[in-house]
């Protein structure tokens, strides 16, 4: 049985958080799908609320605190990422954006990502497509086709096997499929020397 890791990033601000609830359901769906394929999955929950001050400090000082470093490493080193945010002002909240702003560049290249969001009204549903998907496209992550949006009616009116449930299962399966297709993740090392000095001297290092 092979082993893989999924980072489960939630930018929910209240506790308990419907954003975290959605993130857990998506992670479980993906884990179950991978388990059926004989892949053992370790889930690494990353609640951004716990790192809120450290994220801002990182923006100001340029380096993460030890506990934020652990969270960033958990994401950079995961084989797949579930990224869930509440929608504020028609987009991801500032904490969600700031966390990915302080992640080392290049960390998410070719990394499977499942995007999802919660909001107070269904009218925010396309924020996933016009805000989250482009951000992860910029980071050159592989965002699975199904993005999952949960409005209040999905929690209150929905049944355990309702529409939201179906989307969660489908998105989880898509993430599992992308994770399975790839070798285990190896995060980039920002201190690794990637060119020889002779190449640098000859000016061959420029893209």
């Amino acid at each position, binding site marked *: 049985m092979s082993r893989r890791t999924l980072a489960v990033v939630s930018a929910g601000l209240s506790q308990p958080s419907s954003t975290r609830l959605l993130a857990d359901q998506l992670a479980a769906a993906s884990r179950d799908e991978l388990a059926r394929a004989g892949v053992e999955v370790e889930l690494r929950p990353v609640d951004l609320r716990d790192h809120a001050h450290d994220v*801002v*400090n990182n923006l100001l*000082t340029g*380096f993460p*605190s030890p506990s934020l470093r652990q969270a960033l490493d958990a994401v950079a080193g995961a084989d797949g990422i579930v990224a869930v945010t509440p929608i504020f002002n028609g987009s991801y909240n500032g904490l969600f954006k700031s966390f990915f702003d302080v992640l080392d560049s290049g960390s998410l290249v070719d990394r499977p990502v499942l995007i999802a969001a919660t909001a107070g009204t269904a009218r925010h549903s396309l924020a996933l497509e016009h805000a989250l998907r482009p951000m992860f496209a910029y980071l050159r992550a592989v965002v699975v086709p199904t993005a999952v949006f949960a409005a209040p009616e999905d929690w209150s009116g929905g049944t355990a096997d309702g529409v939201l449930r179906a989307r969660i299962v489908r998105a989880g399966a898509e993430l599992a499929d992308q994770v399975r297709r790839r070798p285990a993740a190896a995060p980039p090392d920002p201190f690794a*020397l990637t060119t020889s000095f002779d190449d640098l*001297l000859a*000016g061959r*290092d420029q893209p």
Partner: protein
Amino acid sequence: MQFGIFTVGDVTADPTNGREPSEHERIKAMVTIARKVEEVGLDVFATGEHHNPPFVPSSPTTMLGWIAARTERLLLSTATTLITTNDPVKIAEDFAMLQHLADGRVDLMLGRGNTGPVYPWFGQDIRNGIPLAIENYDLLRRLWREDVVDWSGKFRTPLQSFTSTPRPLDGVPPFVWHGSIRSPEIAEQAAYYGDGYFANHIFWPKEHTQRMVGLYRERFAHYGHGSPDQAIVGLGGQVFMRRNSQDAVREFRPYFDNAPVYGHGPSLEEFTEQTPLTVGSPQQVIDRTLGFRDYVGDYQRQLFLIDHAGLPLKTVLEQLDLLGEEVVPVLRREFDALRPAHVPEAPTHASLVTARATESAAAGHAAEPAAAGTGTEGGR
């Protein structure tokens, strides 16, 4: 081991009373600090180079020339000289001139500068930062080592039959340190030439410094300049001291909380834990500084930042008294006792002149096999 001060040269209002020194006051304070560095028995004064407010030191060799005339032993250096936006021809000339005036009490630290808008003011582009540092330094070395240079490259007009004057004092160029926080290419550059590597160290977690110094040492050996522990390493440090550590914390906190680089971010306690900043008693500074050796190995130069964030001159001079009387004598003794005999001191003009004489003597006997293969000073 060498101990000294490096200064950014910022003009910052004192957050405790709102008073902001004029540029004139700040410049005069910097040279007063430099003279005090010698007076209290430290070895090195290094000034930053900046071309934008709120910084004043745009013309380092002018300042260092003034200091040279008013000091006897002090080693004059930079932190850093911009190898990207300065013409390497001008760096070669300015520092050779300074070398003559200061009777060899000169070295310099090269850095790239990380402020994008500064580059075009000098006809450059920050996106070429690393290639500029590589090409310009390679030319700088030739200008100091070859009497007549024919050269062409990507970033400046070609040179034909050019002689940089004055020639370096005694035909020996100033020793060069390469400073970088997290660009492995610069550690590689320092290693390639067998030059010194300086890790800024302050404002960053020690892991950055540890990785960069480790890389530099490994590549220094790879290029045949000696064993990894013979590489020439310098570190920054940041301290604020009072005899009673609670007094130090109380007095420094408003300067910390409002400092330009890290203010309004992490708490003083968090920053102290996560970076080399030490605020406390002289003994705490001694203990913390000795601890640097645990993760970089035996090193050759320790520079402290003590005059930023609006600290008044009087306070800075008091810091220097504490460094000179209580901290550095202990550090010198302890570091010297710990350092194995095969680990060299930082090169100075005198040691470089001696090394060159030894080399020429060895070259004179090159036909005799017995003379070959001795010494590890070849690259320096």
